[in-house]
């Protein structure tokens, strides 16, 4: 395996609509337009220039049930004035946004397009939370999983219980992920939840599925996000249209992995090793089982190889990863090789994934700031409008690498200083599809 013979791909601009519990003031099309117009404006492009400059698009949305509208993608394409340019919809559960970003990448890398816009949305407020949970749970086997108690928080809770049993991970370690991400989001105006929390707050909030509480779990949202990707020729075209060179970043690696939809079916195999790991590190570990995400490991390995990364902890400056649950953030540290399998709990306790400059009320942590994870606040605090989420992570990564957080947020507290390389990670259905993409300062 390995990705070969591709053209250079640049990520030139992005936009996000503020994630909110509900957006009854607009239908999904103008919500996407908010993100799209922001991305255009940020590179000084007029709306009417877009049809000449863009070659096509990829649309990202997860659930037809939430919209009760099939072919929502074309309705956005039409609303944005992008017809008759080519387009298609990307869908892969929670990883929909990450998949969309990579499909846009492929359009450019393959030479099919020179400028491609990736846009996505979800409108989850159209049903009550419990109905929303039902729609989401339909993304589990409807013969064997859904009818037994279809509830994603329950599935993830079972996964982390095994992680706790196997590796000694504690509920306080889980809670500290929530404290970190909410505190980060306090400085992110796009986030749905901006709160300073303590570990006690997280543990004392309502129990949803033991051991996961309300504050261990992301919330449903309405929101949209958009990114513009281009080849060198595409960048030149943008330059001609706008008279300016966009402050772009380069996409240097993409990877994607899969696993069985039914987590009951997850087999026991050898650990897929990253370049800095040895087989002896994992002697006797039953893998992936339900405590780890083999799809996340596969995606990481492919993306690292593509980007030439041999030690992610040392060579990546920050990560925006899919923290739908505090537990899945800890599991994902391990899949991405930021620490060894089994050490995710200790990794968060060390402070390594926290921002170096923020006081989280947790005292001094020995490794604070080593590799900030979810400086934006992640899904837990920003919200998770599924089709927009992976693209939202991409946009935050772009802004980090541009050093433009202050410009976009009016606050540079969550700006990672001198960030040169970042990773984004998008994850679906107990780890069935996972994408990892690597972005670097151009």
């Amino acid at each position, binding site marked *: 395996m390995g990705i070969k013979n591709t053209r250079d791909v640049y990520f030139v601009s992005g936009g996000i609509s503020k994630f909110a519990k509900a957006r009854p003031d607009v239908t999904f099309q103008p919500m996407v337009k908010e993100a799209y117009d922001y991305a255009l404006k940020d590179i000084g492009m007029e709306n009417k220039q877009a049809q000449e400059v863009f070659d096509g698009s990829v649309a990202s949305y997860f659930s037809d049930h939430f919209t009760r509208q099939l072919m929502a993608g074309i309705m956005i394409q039409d609303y944005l004035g992008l017809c008759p340019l080519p387009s298609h919809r990307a869908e892969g559960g929670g990883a929909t946004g990450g998949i969309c970003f990579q499909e846009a990448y492929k359009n450019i890398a393959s030479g099919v397009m020179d400028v491609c816009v990736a846009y996505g949305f979800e409108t989850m407020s159209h049903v009550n939370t419990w109905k929303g949970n039902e729609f989401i749970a339909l993304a589990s086997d409807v013969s*064997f999983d859904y009818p037994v108690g279809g509830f994603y928080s329950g599935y993830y809770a079972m996964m982390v219980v095994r992680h706790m049993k196997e590796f000694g991970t504690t509920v306080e370690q889980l809670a500290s992920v929530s404290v970190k991400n909410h505190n980060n989001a306090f400085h992110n105006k796009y986030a749905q939840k901006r709160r300073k929390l303590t570990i006690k707050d997280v543990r004392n909030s309502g129990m949803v599925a033991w051991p996961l509480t309300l504050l261990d779990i992301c919330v449903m949202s309405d929101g949209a996000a958009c990114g513009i990707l281009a080849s060198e020729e595409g960048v030149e075209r943008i330059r001609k249209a706008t008279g300016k060179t966009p402050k772009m970043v380069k996409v240097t690696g993409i990877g994607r992995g899969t696993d069985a939809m039914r987590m009951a079916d997850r087999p026991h195999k050898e650990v897929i090793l990253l370049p800095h790991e040895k087989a002896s590190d994992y002697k006797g570990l039953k893998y992936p089982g339900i405590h780890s995400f083999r799809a996340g490991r596969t995606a990481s390995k492919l993306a690292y190889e593509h980007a030439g990364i041999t030690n992610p902890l040392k060579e990546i400056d920050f990560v925006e990863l899919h923290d739908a649950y505090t537990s899945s953030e800890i599991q994902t540290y391990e899949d991405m090789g930021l620490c060894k399998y089994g050490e995710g709990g200790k990794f968060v306790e060390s402070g390594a994934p926290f921002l170096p400059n923020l006081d989280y009320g947790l005292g001094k942590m020995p490794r604070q700031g080593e590799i900030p994870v979810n400086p934006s606040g992640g899904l837990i605090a920003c919200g998770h409008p599924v089709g927009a989420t992976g693209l939202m992570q991409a946009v935050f990564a772009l802004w980090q690498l541009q050093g433009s957080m202050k410009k976009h947020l009016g606050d540079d507290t969550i700006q990672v200083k001198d960030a040169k390389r970042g990773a984004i990670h998008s994850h679906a259905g107990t780890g069935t599809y996972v994408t990892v993409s690597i972005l670097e300062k151009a």
Partner: protein
Amino acid sequence: MKTALQARGQSRLEGKEPKKSRLAEQSEKVYPEQSERVKLPETDDGTILFRVPFPDDLKELHNMSPIVVKQPYHIDYIHSYGQDSPFFAGLSNGKLLGTKCPDCGYAYATPKGHCGECGARCDWVELPKVGRIHTFTVCQFGSEEFLKETPYMLILVEFEKFNTLFLSRLIGFDPKKASLDLVGMKVRPQFKRNAKFKPTDVYFVPAE
């Protein structure tokens, strides 16, 4: 939702005179040459919304509050278990079935028609009478269909000589006493007498 037009129509139902509605009168005004009255039948369904505020200056419509309507959405879905049907027939006979690959020997505690390891068609086999809890949770909340059943316990059960797990409910155990010690506990299946042909026709109880 009841639009202003429908609300007017409703007065016809309630009022004494079953004469022309105002809508019909209006249409006559618009099309005076029309000889026969043409109109849509008025209905009573939907949310009733009276007197939606409306400005004289249409520019102000940008500030209008969004109109939100309720749209019921019920489907009777014809779901086939297809190749997995023998599993559900087994439950109705008090048998818990898995599958096993005749070629490579990989054994599935949740049935899989074809082997994911080597591609062969699997054989039906009965699962052992006792399994162990591989992991669990207590759901205090759930999706709409299961809200009335909370708190309920979900478990993944492991069986000797089977490579994969089985998702089920644990009954007869106080959810308040759930702790990590539950992992590894022996459990045995019990079956509903009146089969509903759902995976919940089987549930597990502590076996020790």
